[in-house]
């Protein structure tokens, strides 16, 4: 499937445009197509015509979302006759781009979202990991990029995500585009981290050791200690 989408924030009015090509899948021409936007438990659905001519049939405003952070899309084509409602094709976890992203092909594996809460940060694993930062603590962009947060919180975030991969019952599949795979590919890119061990009970200790190694490598790679020490010495 070819999918190009842009999300826009025009003075608080959020919307998207998507151009979809389903012509290579041999789908019945009149099968209805839908686009769904989602993040955590927020969700909106848009009628997108038919498999032969997918195009927006309704208002494309993302009124059910308070920001564009972490929004993902899925495209569904359903059967309209015979076994009515059966899914014929699904493309999920599609990341949109915003005009500010330009031509960047880097994929964000940890969207950040503001949340009304009393702790400074926490992870939400409803669909994929999302870093929630308390509105009461300040701007999510300033906090998540601050030196203090990067050095103190990100190693713990990585550890929590890797343990969640195990707890989610995930099974490695080479070509899968799941959030777990994206994180494991990120870990594979770190130096001196061995192959991920299995999830069996007997492998519990070796998995914890592997997570430790990955977090240590992450910290070394980002020079977390040096950054933290130079900051604290500068504060004195």
């Amino acid at each position, binding site marked *: 499937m070819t999918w190009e989408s842009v999300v826009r924030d025009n003075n608080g009015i959020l919307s998207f445009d998507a151009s979809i090509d389903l012509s290579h899948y041999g789908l019945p021409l009149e099968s209805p197509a839908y686009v769904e936007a989602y993040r*955590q438990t*927020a*969700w909106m659905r848009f009628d997108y015509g038919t498999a032969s001519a997918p195009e927006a049939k309704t208002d494309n405003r993302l009124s059910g979302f308070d920001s564009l952070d972490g929004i993902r899309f899925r495209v569904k084509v359903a059967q309209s006759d015979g076994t009515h409602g059966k*899914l014929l094709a699904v493309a999920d976890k599609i990341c949109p781009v915003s005009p500010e992203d330009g031509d960047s092909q880097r994929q964000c594996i940890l969207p950040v979202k503001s949340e*009304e809460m009393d702790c400074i940060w926490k992870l939400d694993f409803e669909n994929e990991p999302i870093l929630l930062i308390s509105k009461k603590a300040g701007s999510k962009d300033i906090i998540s990029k601050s030196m203090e947060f990067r050095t103190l919180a990100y190693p713990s975030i990585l550890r929590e995500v890797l343990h969640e991969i195990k707890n989610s019952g995930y099974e490695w599949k080479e070509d899968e585009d799941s959030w777990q795979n994206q994180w494991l590919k990120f870990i594979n890119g770190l130096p001196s981290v061995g192959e991920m061990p299995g999830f069996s009970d007997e492998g519990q200790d070796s998995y914890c050791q592997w997570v430790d190694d990955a977090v240590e490598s992450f910290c070394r790679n980002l020079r977390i200690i040096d950054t933290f020490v130079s900051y604290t010495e500068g504060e004195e």
Partner: protein
Amino acid sequence: MEKMRLRKLKETGIMKMGDYLDSLGGDKPPAFPLEILTDSSFSDFVSDVEVEPRKFRNKYELASYLHGLFSEASPADVVADTGLWCWLSLYFFEQLCPRERGGRFKPGARARWIPEVDNFQRYYRHLLAGPYRVFFFHRDRPERAMALLCGEICKQGDLIEQLASRQELITNKHLIEAVTSLYFDRESDRNKRGAGGKGAGSPRRLAEVIDQFNLTWDLYSLTANEFLGLLPAEFDRFKNN
């Protein structure tokens, strides 16, 4: 409680309300802070709409009343107004938080009283805003959502916990119609026995089955009967009862 014109709590009022809720755990709960509802240092006037001290048999009556109360207001503004829901929660406090044995109050989690308006998952825990929003989504025929709205207003209920926190489920009219057909008993005006449990055919199992169906079916395309026809045999005791 007497009739009052609709108000909303200020930040100071919400803080005082939070303090009051926190203080209710002991044997001698403090006096109800009535001044929060009326004093302009804690709350602001909203409109001439009068709120009256009613007794609600269930969430449906409550949500229907609130829907009428807000008939002139913008739904988006109502849903997102934390201060408004806090004020209403205090106004109906006696019904929302009946005394336990021994005279203690057990208000429960903050989200039941102070809505988390940015968090769809926890918004439904609010004892007033949750039922109101379910009613609002199904306002063309709210009886469709009776399985979620037939319970006491001081209790959230397992169906709300399992279904209402997920927008793609709670806004699906055919699915909610099927859920009511499955669990709601029109004769007794309550949910069928076992509809709050954990075992076979329970709302918790239904949520799991829906997750499985989502892999194969476009649930929004299915009619209520088509959805019911797909359910495994463990749900037969509710279908045939």
